[in-house]
């Protein structure tokens, strides 16, 4: 079974790197969205520092949902997904491989870009480490929960619009806990518990979400 997992992971990464420009879309989207906030709110450094964790996290949420639409789309349209289901390999594992590939391509760049965003938003330097940690723990949760929504809306023509309605309410706890952790650092409070909660959420989602999205895919393909 791990062989199938690794083969699929390699295939998805290879496909992604063959279309390098598309890799940049979520990244560019994130940059544009975050740069709008100082323009709309004003360049006051104190205010920007206060809202920085929330702005960066909400932008990450939006960028994830934008990139999620492509998670199963091409495989669904050319019939590869049906072959996956018929292949005899557990669909849960296949789904997990695709989610890992998606996170490496769309989630990890957001984490790597966060220092730049932190400078833009005047985030205090001592909060930066925790900000990166929350993104590192949180963005995989976004991909995992999002995959369920993608699976459910796959057979719809305008699934992307519905997707945001389905997944944003489910993202609420991640947003609250992650931004609370960063703000706790700024206020000089202990933040370990928040990182613990995020890790717990990540472990729960890794174990449960692939089953739900595999079930969702089977419904969409039927």
């Amino acid at each position, binding site marked *: 079974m791990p062989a199938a997992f690794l083969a699929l992971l390699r295939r998805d990464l290879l496909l992604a790197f063959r279309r390098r420009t598309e890799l940049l879309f979520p990244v560019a989207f994130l940059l544009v969205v975050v740069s709008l906030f100082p323009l709309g709110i004003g360049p006051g450094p104190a205010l920007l520092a206060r809202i920085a964790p929330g702005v960066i996290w909400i932008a990450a949420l939006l960028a994830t949902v934008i990139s999620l639409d492509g998670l199963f789309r091409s495989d669904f349209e050319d019939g590869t997904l049906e072959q996956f289901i018929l292949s005899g390999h557990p669909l849960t594992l296949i789904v997990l491989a695709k989610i890992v590939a998606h996170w490496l391509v769309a989630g990890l760049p957001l984490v790597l870009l966060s220092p730049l965003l932190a400078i833009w938003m005047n985030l205090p330097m001592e909060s930066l480490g925790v900000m990166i940690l929350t993104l590192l723990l949180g963005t995989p949760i976004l991909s995992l929960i999002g995959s369920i929504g993608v699976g459910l809306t796959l057979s*719809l023509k305008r699934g992307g619009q519905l997707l945001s309605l389905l997944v944003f309410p489910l993202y609420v*706890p991640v947003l609250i806990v992650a931004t609370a952790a960063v703000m706790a650092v700024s206020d000089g409070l202990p933040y370990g518990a928040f990182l613990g909660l995020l890790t717990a959420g990540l472990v729960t989602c890794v174990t449960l979400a692939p089953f739900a999205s595999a079930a969702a895919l089977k419904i969409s393909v039927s």
Partner: protein
Amino acid sequence: MKTDKARKNPLVMFIHKLGSPPWFYGFTGKFIPWLWAVFAVLTIWGLYLGLFKAPPDYLQGESYRIMYIHVPAAWMSMMIYVLMAIMGFIALIWRIRTMEIMAMNSAPIGAAFTLIALATGSLWGRPTWGTYWVWDARLTSELVLLFLYLGVIGLYKAMDEPRKAARAASLLAMVGLVNLPIIHFSVKWWNTLHQGSSISLTGSKIDPSMLWPLLIMAVAMKFYYAANLITRSRVTLLEQDLRKSWTRTVAEDATGELKS
């Protein structure tokens, strides 16, 4: 052998029969007027006691009376989501069509209760807290609940094939049910302004003269949900089975009654 044994069990037989649309239609048709009648009597009784008999609150005056709508609606909004997810679970596992229809018809009723709870809450908040809306924990989780309902309804309506749509939306409802406590506690921790619960399973801090109308209204709303759900489900069954013979029989019976 096992199936023979199961067939003789009256409860198993009853559940089997409920899965059959004609039987469900006939069976529910017998008691649906009673559900509506009990709902009407209890509501009139509860509202009379709550709006005219219960004394005004020493702190909030008359404005507290909105709780006779607000609190039962908030309770129902959560209860219906749980029931919808459970019915969706049953529908997904055993592929019972009447269950799919019941789960999906629960969503608009639950969303309406959520909206009523939010609207009455903000009307009450204006004189009491001085503002229509605050980002308080319970208000926020109720708002997220409304979004979850809208997601289920949206997904169900977006798909053309009703059975596939019901299965997809049922799965979404189940995912939402797993998330609901997490959302609730994260939001609760995030900000709390709402007054604490006055009623718990172990006792109540409310005077009986104020409590009784509330409990009567809560029961009345459960009858409303049952009556509304079954009425909606019967209509959906007729719509979906428009070209089947049992709906023809139902239609002939109905028109025959009209003629005679």
